[in-house]
Structure formats: structure tokens, C-alpha cells
């Protein structure tokens, strides 16, 4: 029966199982930010705890460390995960981006080598996409990979690599055909960040932690086995990865539902002094968070029925990133003169890091393709407007 928005008994049982596990295992106190060294290490530990409970990446096949769960079960898992206030996933680049990419484009050897390690929380991955002159315009990249026998020699300079300062491996595309331009002649590589010739330099983010990094590749020799897909196929693979990034999994709706729910509580303690429009803004935040969740359920059932995620990933990206900014702006408005307090100050209201969350939300409309670019994609590919 269609439009049956009730969970099956199995799904209910699954939820109970997740809830019970989270209740026992989620750290009682929030971990320090994963953008810093100490916090990163603790988050890495948490990934191993998750893996020990078989929760590393539940939708993956069992052979790669998953449990072959359905997308509906994944959504339930996420709901319980955020409901339990569990730590952010330090390996989101691996499990949500490179994982699906490997599943689609990797050789059997590569899948066997990398996926279980990801799911186990043993190897944490960073992206190596952007370059100083190639941000939104990824095709403008200049880093090269030169074939020499059974190896490639990588040279270049990547930037805005989230958490690369503390991660183990990175993935990115390099120009293998020196005569090529734009989207052609690019190849996808996997490189350990500890490999000879790789140098990582942290870049501090607005809040002062080195959440970004630059990666310098100085004559880095990598075996052909670390090439993902064929020589010259890098752009297509990277675009698929970027689709995963904007698509279903990276921003699970529960994250925003929990934030909106906390916002309601914050509003309730400030209702006497809040200006009237904030009541409506907070209600809107809840509605938008639920709209995003409903849309995700709709997409998930469509995927289960054999559908694909296409351009609508761009709609998602705009919606959740603007929602996240909206939620946090509401919170800062409610906090008034307390909004500016740095995280950890004893006078901070409640236990929610609204200010850090606000600053983090400002990155949303930028990364994974700026919202301006997403609007171009929607206009051109979904609505069919002429190219600029």
C-alpha cells in the first residue's frame, strides 16, 4: 500500500535496538570539538566504539563491515543517533563520500582493502579537492600526477581539506594528462597523509581551531593500486562523490530535527522577552526540519524502489544549509546579550553550543558546492533554463 507512513514491526524493533545501544554507549558528556587535536582523538575512539557495536556504516554489506540495513533503517538509526546526542562522525568523508564511491567505482581489491577499515573507524579520511585557484571551479585544478612505470608522481597544492590535519588518508583528483583542460585528463587517487612527500598544514577556521588544512604534494610516489577508476576518469568519479555529498546521507534530517527541538526549548525559556516574530521563526524552524525529514523519507523510498538521486540533491543542499543558518540565527537572537559568549564560558546559557553552531552553519551554504552553484544547477538541469 502506498503512502503508508507507519513503521513496520521490524522497523520498530530495529529502533528499539538502536535506542538501547545508544543509551548505554553514548558518552554522557559531549566530546570536545573534533576540529581540535584532543577532540579528534576522542571522536576517533567513538568511531571504534560504534564499529565494535556493528554500527560503523549499517547500510553497507556485511562483508565490508556493515549490516546490510535498508535506507529506512538507516534513517531510524540516524534519528536515534541524534536523539541520543551522540558525537559527530569524524569519518564522514570516508563513510558517506568515499565509501559509496568505492562501492561504485572501486576494484574488488580496493573495496576489500579500504571499506572495512573505514567502517571499523581505523582509517579516517580527508578530502583533497580544492586548490587555491580552484574552489567552486573544481575543473580549474592544476595539481598533477605523472605516470612513471607502475607509479604516479603527484605534485601540487590542495586546500580547504576538512580535518586533514589529523586524518590518515585523503582522496582527490589530479591532472594526469598535462595537455588536457578543464574536466578532461583528471584521475582519482587515494593517498595516505603520512606518505613521503605529503605535507599537511592546518588552517584555522573562524572559531580558531585547525578544522581545515592545506596539503602539499611534493613528488609523492603512489602505486597504481591507489588509483580509483581508470586514468582520465577522475572528473566523473568526483562528480559522483560530490553527488553523495549533497545527496541523501551527509546531512541526515534528525540532526536538524534535534536542533529545532532544542530551539523550541530555548524559546520557551525566553518567551517573555522574545520579540513576536521569533515565535513564528522558531515554529518555521521546526516545520522546515520536518519538511526536510519527510523529503528524505520520500527520497529513501524512491531509492529503495530503484530510483536514483539526481539534480534534486541540489535542492537538498540549499534547503538544509539555509535551515541550519536559520535555526542558529534564531537561537542567537533569543540569547541576546549572552549570544557572544565563547564556548566554555561559565555564563553560557544552557548546554547547547549555539554560537559555535552558528559559525559552523555559515559554512553550509559554501561547502559541497556553493548554494549559488546549486541554484545554477537547479535552474539549468531541473528547470531547463538556458546556460549562462
Amino acid at each position, binding site marked *: 500500500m502506498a503512502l503508508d507512513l507507519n513503521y513496520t514491526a521490524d522497523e520498530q524493533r530495529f529502533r528499539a535496538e538502536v535506542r538501547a545501544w545508544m543509551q548505554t554507549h553514548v558518552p554522557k558528556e559531549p566530546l570536545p570539538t573534533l576540529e581540535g587535536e584532543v577532540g579528534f582523538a576522542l571522536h576517533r575512539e567513538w568511531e571504534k566504539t560504534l564499529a565494535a557495536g556493528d554500527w560503523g556504516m549499517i547500510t553497507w554489506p556485511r562483508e565490508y563491515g556493515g549490516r546490510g540495513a535498508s535506507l529506512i533503517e538507516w534513517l531510524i538509526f540516524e534519528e536515534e543517533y541524534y536523539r541520543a546526542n551522540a558525537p559527530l562522525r569524524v569519518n564522514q568523508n570516508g563513510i558517506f563520500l568515499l565509501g559509496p564511491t568505492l562501492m561504485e567505482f572501486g576494484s574488488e581489491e580496493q573495496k576489500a582493502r579500504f571499506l572495512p577499515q573505514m567502517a571499523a573507524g581505523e582509517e579516517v579520511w580527508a578530502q583533497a579537492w580544492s586548490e587555491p585557484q580552484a574552489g567552486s571551479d573544481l575543473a580549474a585544478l592544476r595539481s598533477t600526477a605523472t605516470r612513471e612505470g607502475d607509479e604516479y608522481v603527484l605534485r601540487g597544492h590542495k586546500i580547504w581539506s576538512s580535518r586533514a590535519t589529523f586524518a590518515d588518508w585523503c582522496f582527490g583528483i589530479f591532472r594526469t594528462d598535462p595537455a588536457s583542460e578543464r574536466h578532461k585528463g583528471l584521475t582519482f587517487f587515494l593517498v595516505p597523509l603520512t606518505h613521503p612527500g605529503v605535507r599537511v598544514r592546518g588552517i584555522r577556521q573562524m572559531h580558531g581551531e585547525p578544522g581545515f588544512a592545506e596539503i602539499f604534494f611534493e613528488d609523492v610516489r603512489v602505486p597504481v593500486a591507489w588509483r580509483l577508476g581508470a586514468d582520465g576518469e577522475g572528473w566523473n568519479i568526483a562528480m559522483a562523490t560530490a553527488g553523495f555529498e549533497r545527496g541523501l546521507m551527509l546531512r541526515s534530517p534528525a540532526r536538524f530535527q534535534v536542533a529545532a527541538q532544542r530551539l523550541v526549548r530555548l524559546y520557551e525559556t525566553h518567551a517573555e522577552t522574545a520579540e513576536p516574530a521569533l515565535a513564528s521563526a522558531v515554529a518555521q524552524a*521546526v516545520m522546515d526540519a*520536518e519538511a526536510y525529514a519527510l523529503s528524505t*523519507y520520500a527520497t529513501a523510498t524512491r531509492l529503495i524502489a530503484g530510483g536514483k538521486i539526481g539534480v534534486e540533491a541540489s535542492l537538498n543542499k540549499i534547503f538544509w544549509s539555509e535551515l541550519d543558518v536559520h535555526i542558529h540565527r534564531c537561537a542567537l537572537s533569543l540569547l541576546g546579550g549572552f549570544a557572544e559568549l565563547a564556548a566554555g564560558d561559565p555564563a553560557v546559557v544552557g548546554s547547547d553550543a549555539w554560537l559555535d553552531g552558528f559559525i559552523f552553519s555559515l559554512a553550509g551554504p559554501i561547502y559541497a558546492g556553493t548554494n549559488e552553484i546549486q541554484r545554477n544547477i537547479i535552474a539549468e538541469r531541473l528547470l531547463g*533554463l538556458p546556460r549562462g
Partner: protein
Amino acid sequence: MDFTFTEEQQMMVSAFRELADDLCSATALRAAFEGRSDHASERWQRLAELGLPGMLAPESVGGMGLNLADFILIAEAAGRAALPETLVEHAGIAVPLLSEFSADARVASVLQAAASGDARVAINHTSNPFALGALEASHVLMVGDQEIHLLTRDAVSLESHRSIDALRSLSRVTGSLGASTCIARGAEAVAAAARAFERGALLTAAECAGLCEALIGLGVSYASERTQFGKKIGSYQAIKHQLANVQVKLEFARPVLYAAATQADALTTRSQFAVSHAKLASTDAVDLAGRTAVQVHGAMGYSWEVDVHFYLKRALGLTGMWGDRSFHMRRAQHQLFTQHLDVGPDALFGSSALPAMSL
């Protein structure tokens, strides 16, 4: 958990969209709007042939016995076509209301005629300042605070009012109400009236989503043809991004509509929050769509010559009915801040929350 429509549902709506495209061509709409033609009875006839008036009536009276979730895409398609007939009110609100009282012989006969399309039923609901389509109806449901009455059109007096949408006939309806006209009273009437209100809010929301789609389409077509400064205006980011923003709003209104359709009849805090959400999301989307479509068309959009204004005016009317923006936003806030509706991620579908665990 399955958030897709069945093949039957999709086929039904495809058939209706095809018919509606045919009945509501730009030329036909324009003629109707300007009062130059009246194909109203022919259009109603064609709708009836498809069985649409009786979609939600029980099979025992010749209906299809379907439910609100089956009808939601039809309402959306009616909006998209700017269908002049009050199909949505008749089939989506009046017929289900009558069906609740079909044990009453007086009701059953009207319901049978309504299901076939031979009768057309308008609703004068206490929450709306005007009744829609009473002028063209054969019967009027008078839905008050404590009682529901069913009268023939001849038995009521209409005071006509003019909407800016010439295709919406508005009336204030009065009639002599008594035991012979009363079909429900007390708690039963209150609950039925409340369900009618939820369906009204939900289905006008669906019509607004359809109008929104139509307005985006008009904007996209014009922007793809019109040249200024040597380029199609649709190639400028200023135009692209405005239209993309409307599409985002529409895309995140639709699943809300569909989810609300599965629960609107329940009259729970959660279901009412879902319906209010649907009405707000769809009316906000069509509001932005209307203004954007005018802007994209430039002076042309402000003229009578292009079709934008038909859709924009329809949306203006629908937005104020079955609870205006203020009503639904206040109701949603009441549910959140006073009734403390659970909005945790496990509470989205109401039924999904686990019992408290004793671990």
C-alpha cells in the same frame, strides 16, 4: 513505511492532468475569466465521466471508495490547471462529509447524485467568510458550530460577493434551518465539521502547490524565450536564482502535503500540526511563485495579456480559505509551545514513538 504513490494513483492523476490540460487551455481559461464563454457544464460533465466527483464516496453509492491520500494529487493537478470548477471542494470535502452520514436516507440520495456528478454540493463552513461555488451548486452544506444542515440550492438565499478571481463565485448563504434539514448535531457534528476543515485546509494547500508549479512553468517558458541585452533572460543568474528558489520551496512543500494527507482525518495534535504545516508551506511557496513569475515577465507579467495573473489571483483566494496564514501559524505555535507537541526525530509520524523504555 512507504512514501510513494501506487501505479493506480499515478495513472489516475495522469488521466486527470491530461483532461485538465485539455479543459483548461490558456484560451479556455481566458474566455472563462472574461465571461466570454461558458463551458462550465461541459467541463463538469467531462470530470464526472472520469468518476472524479465520487472518488471519495463509498462504492455502495457508486463512488470509488478511495481516501484523502488518493485525492491529494488530484487536488494538486486541479490547482496546476487553475480548474474553474469546484471539484476539490465537492469531491474532496463535501462528499466525504456526506459519506459520514450516509446512513441517513436524505443524505444517501444526495450523496449518490454527488458521486455521479449529477448533484454539485457547496459548503458554507463557519470558518470561511464566504461559501465557494454556491451559485453553481445544486446543494449547500451549512456547517455550523454545533449542527450540520443539508439544503437544496433553491432553499437558500445567496448574497453574492466578487473575488478578484472572476472564476471564484463567493456567497454568504442563509437559509431556514430546522429538523428537516439537520443531518448532524452535537459532538458528531463538531467532529465532522473539524474533519471538513482539515480536509479543506489540506486540499487548498495542494491546489496552491499545483498553482506554484504552473507559475514556475510560466516563468521558465518566458525566460527561455525573451531576449534582453543580447541574451535569453533565463541565462542571467538574477532570473535563474529567483526561479530556483521557488522550486526549492515547492519541493519541500510537497512531501509535507502527502504526509498530511495520510493523517488529516485523525484530528490529533500531530495531524493538525501536519495540516497547518502543509497549508503554510504551500501558500508561502505559491506567494513567492506569483511574485517571481510577475517579476520574470517584466511589464508583460503585470498585464492582462499573459496568464500569470489567473494563477496569482486563484492563489490569493485559496490562501485565505480554510484558515488563513495567521490561523495556521498560530495553531502551529499553540501546538508547539502550549501543547508541547513532541517534535523529536522519532515523533515525525506520530505513531512511531516507542513506549518509554525501562532499561
